[in-house]
């Protein structure tokens, strides 16, 4: 047990470290606090990131804290994941491929009583990595231009503590406290006429957000669920250095000046979902989530935010045949996800559509499994000021399940 905890803590430290390096570079990361990661646990990526109504019985369901109440007794779950993403960026004039590997999440969960469960999860929330080289922009009030070169890095992390409690056999309620923390750096240099002005900005963020969830089992095959993520204010403070380079001489305009900057607001998000099982081997999940971004008093600095709708649907299928045969124990999954996006760039929404296929490969005869998902998605669109990202993504989630605190019944 002791060695397990040591391994875990080392792993947590390592993954914290790797947050700073696993960069998902997207031109859209310019906005907000960066591009949001999707870092779902277990087999959720395979089913189009749907599953608000799924229980945390074979893996941790990160979509709804109420699911923790349905954890099997005496089990200890651990979920860790990573992704390999190949993205093609397309604008009206060019196209470019970029590959990227990133850490997805680290989470563990255990039942507290026979009616409740608890989980701790660490995952990246957003990546503010982007790069702009020598972009020509007009100088306001003139016919002249200046040139902008910019590099963004960093991002926010999410540390979740979740708890779910079951009232009777059918209803469970849950809550998550999410700590959002991290920093983004934004280095820009402006070539205006004969002078370069460089602005180096590091913004620190931290904030707390609560999520509430409920699941209700109508019968043994049919569950309905809902989640509410409450609006939150993520406090932001920046440290900025401004320099100007003229006549080959660097002049400091300001050095490491600390100041408050516009806080980042997270919206009220409401989700509903259902899960229905047919013939004991086909399961369908259906989710809808609405995020009221336009109600937040988001500063102009972060971009234009609009209300977001997200639809997700997933199917899992498992053969009912011989459970001893390995091939029959594999679970097949597929899903779709469509998301209208919360960003509006030049009056156009940045939407996202994904189709996914996955396998759940059980490990030996344990409850542990390796979830492999392939998904293909498209984000944005090609137009004057927008680009389209086509991406192929392989997600590997390792869901480990250990029996814990088993009291020997026979001495």
């Amino acid at each position, binding site marked *: 047990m002791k060695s397990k905890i040591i391994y875990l803590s080392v792993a947590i430290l390592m993954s914290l470290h790797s947050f700073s390096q696993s960069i998902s570079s997207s031109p859209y990361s310019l906005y907000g606090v960066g591009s949001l990661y999707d870092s779902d646990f277990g087999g959720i990526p395979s089913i189009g990131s749907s599953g608000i109504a799924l229980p945390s019985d074979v893996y941790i369901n990160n979509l709804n804290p109420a699911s923790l109440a349905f954890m099997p007794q005496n089990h200890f779950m651990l979920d860790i994941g*990573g992704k390999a993403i190949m993205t093609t960026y397309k604008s009206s004039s060019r196209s470019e491929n970029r590959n990227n590997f990133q850490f997805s999440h680290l989470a563990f969960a255990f039942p507290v009583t026979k009616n409740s469960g608890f989980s701790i999860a660490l995952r990246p929330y957003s990546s503010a990595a982007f790069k702009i080289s020598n972009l020509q*922009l007009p100088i306001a*009030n003139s016919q002249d231009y200046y040139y902008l070169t910019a590099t963004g890095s960093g991002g926010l992390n999410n540390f979740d503590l979740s708890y779910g409690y079951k009232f009777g056999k059918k209803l469970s309620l849950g809550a998550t406290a999410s700590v959002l923390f991290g920093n983004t750096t934004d280095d820009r240099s402006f070539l205006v*006429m004969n002078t370069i002005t460089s602005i180096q900005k590091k913004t620190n963020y931290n904030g707390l957000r609560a999520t509430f969830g409920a699941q209700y089992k109508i019968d043994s095959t049919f569950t309905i669920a809902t989640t509410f993520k409450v609006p939150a204010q993520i406090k932001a403070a920046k440290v900025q250095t*401004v320099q100007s380079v003229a006549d080959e001489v660097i*002049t400091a*305009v300001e050095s490491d000046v600390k100041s408050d900057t516009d806080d980042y607001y997270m919206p009220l998000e409401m989700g509903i979902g259902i899960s229905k099982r047919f013939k004991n081997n086909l399961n369908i999940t259906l989710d809808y989530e609405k995020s009221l971004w336009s109600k937040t008093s988001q500063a102009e600095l972060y971009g234009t935010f609009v209300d977001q709708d997200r639809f997700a649907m997933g199917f899992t299928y498992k053969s009912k045949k011989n459970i001893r045969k390995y091939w029959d124990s594999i679970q097949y999954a597929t899903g779709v996800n469509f998301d209208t996006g919360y960003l509006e760039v030049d009056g156009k929404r940045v939407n996202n559509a994904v189709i996914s296929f996955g396998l759940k490969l059980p490990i030996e005869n344990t409850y542990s499994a390796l979830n492999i998902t392939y998904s293909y998605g498209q984000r944005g669109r090609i137009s004057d000021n927008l680009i389209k990202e086509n991406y192929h993504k392989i997600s590997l989630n390792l869901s480990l399940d250990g029996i814990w605190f088993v009291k020997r019944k026979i001495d």
Partner: protein
Amino acid sequence: MLLFAMTVLSCGTDSDAGEFVVGSDYLALSNKVILIDTVTVEMSTINFDSLITSRQSRILIGNYDDPLYGKVKSNSYFQLASDSYSLINTGSDTETTNYVFDSISMILKYDNYYYGDTTKVQTFDIHRLTQKVKPNTDDSNFYNNSALNYSEESLGSISYKPRPLEKDSINIKMNDAFGAALFQKLKKREITDFDSFSEYLKGLVLVPTSSNSASVVGFHVATSKVRLYYSKYQADTEETPYVLDFTILDAAKQFNSISLDKNGTLLQNLPVSSSKLSSLLTDHQGYIQSGTGVACKIDFPNIRQLKYISDKGAIVDAQLLLKPVNNTYSEKYPLADSLRIYVGDNLNRISGSLVNSANTAVFGILNKKSDEFNENVGYVVPIGNFLQKEMLKQSDSRSSLILTLPGISKTVNRIVLGDQKHLNNKIQLKIYYISY
């Protein structure tokens, strides 16, 4: 161990060339780069007390009537000296007595500087100083307003059309009586050294006459001379005469007295050196004239208000475009290639040259000599560094720019610049500002 492998794997990523950008309008939002061209620029004309005109290595002589500035005149004073104060000694002592005076001339070598109409006849006279070439001031300098007494009698006169570029020099025949008297002094050994020479001939001054007034011309100090010709008594006519040259050996003992009679011009009320004459009173024009100390002053009375454009902002670059007024320059009165820019205070005291961020002096550079309508002819001055400092200044003192032409102490070039309200040749200020 598996966990380790996962975390290590997560580190790799491809590089991003930065070719893709979404929403360029948004990018301009957080840091605005704007051009500000509505800042008030005040122009005025000032007059420097005095300019040091000794040791300038130029004999500046001539006068011309300038419709804008008035009557410009330059007298040139100098003291002569020679390497030797004895006649040629070819052998026996007795021969000396046999030399006779032939003639005396002043030879002035063009130094290629001229201003005004050189196709017209210019006249000037040579006069003898009645006082030594010695400064009246405590220092050892002479100024453009220095003057020395001289005798009314002309020792020589020339009326000529200057050919400063085509010809090498001019030759002015001087009074024979003056030459003969000097010769006798030398022959009788009454002048044997510089002291006795300078006691006898304290110096000369070249004075242009007001009747022929067309141009001002520069001559070399080092190579111009007064040449005394003499020969053996009853010598053959083919025999070359002997010469004794008197030159300006001490450049500190040569200066030009440059004056300006502004009566009847817009500049006639030009105040004392610590004050200024606003361009509002001079047809929306600012004036610069070398030699006479007329200079143009530029003030930016509202520059500190730029601080309030945004919460935080900086002037990243700024250009001042100074435009010479149409029809105030021509081939005869050409535009200088550059302007010298100084930083001064409210009393026109100069603290130094205008400098860039690297602390090197910057000039106003003429962008082009002329174009079809002369609309864009002008001097471009980079003043971003200056204005950024002015904007951030905590004290109440404001600095001004003081514009002069190159060769302020040894030329009479002039220029007329338009102010912000000028009809055709407005001064322009472009400030590039970034908010951060």
